[in-house]
């Protein structure tokens, strides 16, 4: 089963996304902030990370940069989820090392497509 790590501090949004993704057949683990996410990745490697950018303790950008620095998690696919909708916000997320970016409110089918794209790319690369 494909495991996704959802990093999201807003309880409502976390609950909603977890349930919707679970219905699509993903195994979801959730974290509320960047530190927690890093700890969880250390423990068990997920297949993909969905990360909100405005997080307490350690924000999404910093968390993503840290993931890219670590050889173990260097290639771990990350999709940024954020309510910041400006073009430069997207660039900021990509610069921090995110593989893709989606704006809230989330277009769910598009999110699924993005997840599948990244996962298939990962299998192609044979990681």
């Amino acid at each position, binding site marked *: 089963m494909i495991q996704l790590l959802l990093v999201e501090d807003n309880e409502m949004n976390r609950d*909603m996304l977890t*349930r919707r993704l679970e219905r699509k057949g993903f195994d979801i683990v959730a974290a509320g902030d960047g530190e927690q996410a890093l700890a969880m990745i250390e423990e068990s490697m997920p297949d993909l990370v969905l990360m909100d950018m405005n997080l307490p303790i350690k924000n999404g950008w910093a968390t993503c940069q840290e993931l890219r620095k670590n050889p173990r998690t260097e290639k771990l696919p990350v999709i940024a989820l954020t309510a910041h909708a400006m073009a430069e916000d997207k660039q900021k997320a990509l610069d921090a090392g995110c593989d893709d970016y989606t704006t809230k409110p989330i277009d769910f089918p598009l999110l699924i497509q993005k997840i599948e794209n990244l996962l298939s790319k990962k299998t192609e690369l044979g990681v």
Partner: protein
Amino acid sequence: MFTPPRLTLRLRLSISIIAIVALFTLTNITYQVSSENRNLRLDNLQNAVASQLGIVSIRQLLENQQKQILVLDALKNSEGENLTRQENDKGLEGLISLQAEIMRLEPFVFSETAESYNSLIENYKSLNQDWRQFYVGYNERRTPTIKKVEKKFNTTMKLLSEFESIEIVATEQQTLNLQRTVRFTDRITLAIYLFTIALTVSLGYLLIRYTNRSLNELNKGTVRIGGGDLKYHIPVNNDDEIGDLTIAFNQMSDKLSNAMAQVQQSKEKADQANRSKTNFLANMSHELRTPLNAIIGYSEMIIEDYREENSLDEAQAVEDLQRILSSGRHLLQLINDVLDLAKIESGNMTVFNETFDSVDIIEELLTTMAPIAKKSGNVIVLEKSNHIPKLYNDAVKFRQLLLNLLSNACKFTEKGKITILASYNEKNNHAVFHVSDTGIGMTPSQIELVFKAFVQADSSTSKKYGGTGLGLAICKQFVELMQGSMDVTSAEGKGTTFTVLLPTKAVSQVKKDAIPSENQQELSLDITHSTSVNNDDENNANSLGRVLVIDDDQAARQLLLRHLEKEGYRAIEADNAKDGIKIANEQQPDLILLDLMMPNIDGWTALSVLKESDNTRHIPVILQSMLDEKTLGLDLGAAEFLPKPVDRQRMATTLRHLNPQERRGVALLISPESDARDLLLEELADEAWQCMTAITCTQAEERMQQKSVDIIFIGLGIETETVIDILAMLSAQQKSGVPITPIYIVSETPLSKEQSRRLDLPADQIIFSISLKKNNRQTLY
């Protein structure tokens, strides 16, 4: 103290010209002097020549005379012949002319020759005397001795020669002197002439050079300033016209530079404002998207559940719907707050000052806040330090302000104490309100940002504690609008205290241009209201009219009553349709506000009863409902429809529109009872006419005596004879001074030629009931 005059360009030019003219004059004078000397020299020469000629002729005459005397002497001695009288006279004449000749030399005598001349004259006189004696005494032979005469003659000749030589020397000397003077004056003239030329040239050169240099400096400076170097100052070298020009130029560039700086500054400000607007929009977008995410996500999920799984877990769905609802509410709050802020920023937020008791409002708020405080285990306490006078300020804003502060305190405090300390500062006439909590507090950097829009201490705070992050920004703006001030002190982990200072009496300041006309109307209505509050019940003259409110819901009724009173109406209430109809019949209100959803008799039934009765048909009915029933309502005879919940502004406009006191006028309809008549009545009432009816000519006359009528409608089945009677009655009235009233004949069919002739009416006064509703409305306006 002597101050040297300014060496202006004009002065320089003047001095140069004066100098040149003076030198020119001097040249002229010296020339004159030299030419005079020259003339003198010429005269001298002429004199010298004349005197020489004179001397020569004198010598000749002397010698001739001597010869004659010698001859006479010889003759006297030899023949002893006497002189004839003629010869004697001739001789004496010769002596006289000789004397005259000698005397003619006198003008040529100089000081040097005067002595010689004098001795010559003296000698001659003596000689002359002898010669004379010679002639006079000749015939008596008493003549002086010839020897003596000869001796005198020789002396005279010698003296003449002497005089001649001295005269020549003196003349030469004189000439030499004159020549010297002429030479000297010539030199002076030349020198002055040359000097004048030199001076003119050098002065011209200096002036040109000096002016040129100053102008060059000025030119260079202008080019530099023109090129944008506004800081450049042209050096001021001279205290003259060009110097003045330079100073003026420098001042101009200074002013220009200042203006540029100001423009730059305002541009920076505008840029800053633009940036913060962009930031605000970005934040706004972010804040709106977060709750929208939940709303859309949960909604989609529920739809998925329902469609795909076909197994809706009801409990789960309700829970999700609750989340959608709460997100929606959050969104609404956010939008309201943003609108409030925008309204404040654009200057459209108006302040409605009134006198209120701040403590009353706080106590009321304590009741409202109690359940919220209880939820987080907080206690709210009100402490009053002294008597607080009533405030004259915006009560609504005061309420919102304190509500915001209290809910804020509750939000960031758990199991703590929230204190409102109200006091009055007599010195500066300010009421002071402290709202303190024992909550999480803030760090100094957080305090700095606390009044900024969209900034909460930490983005995670908003997620934990909720809120839009705009509340305190709005509070701050409110306080400023209320002419007060607001401050905050806080210690992390210990709590926060917000302090609000409000003047006990706010100065009313109506910024006319900032308030749209609608608000002004609201304002003026408020004023009429506040004046009528004092006189309240007994003074109905000020009331805009009486409005009957029929609604079973007490809260809704109370709200309407408050709105109505604020707008200046007197309200009558009924909590059910039956009572409402009864009151309408008895008290004849000007307007009726009718709720459609009521138990027992509903609004629809009440409307039809009111519209069926002659007694109440004319009263405009405004329907109210949550559902949009406008079309049906208007078809059934309602004057207007207002959706619930009531929008105060819209209600005020509707009331004003329908208020009989602002009606067009009184219409008299003379017609037998019929459906068509009722339809016309309804139509007229809708168009804000107050209607009276009459069936006969007599009745019509009575009605017109009761009330002045603005328009008359006749028709719909009235006999032509009756119509003629009425017209006769009206024309009789007009003759007796009653103003002319427009008359309309209402007929279902066009009048026959015969009828028209008999009625003698212009065709445009005839309208037809068939087309009344659609086409001919405008004739009624």
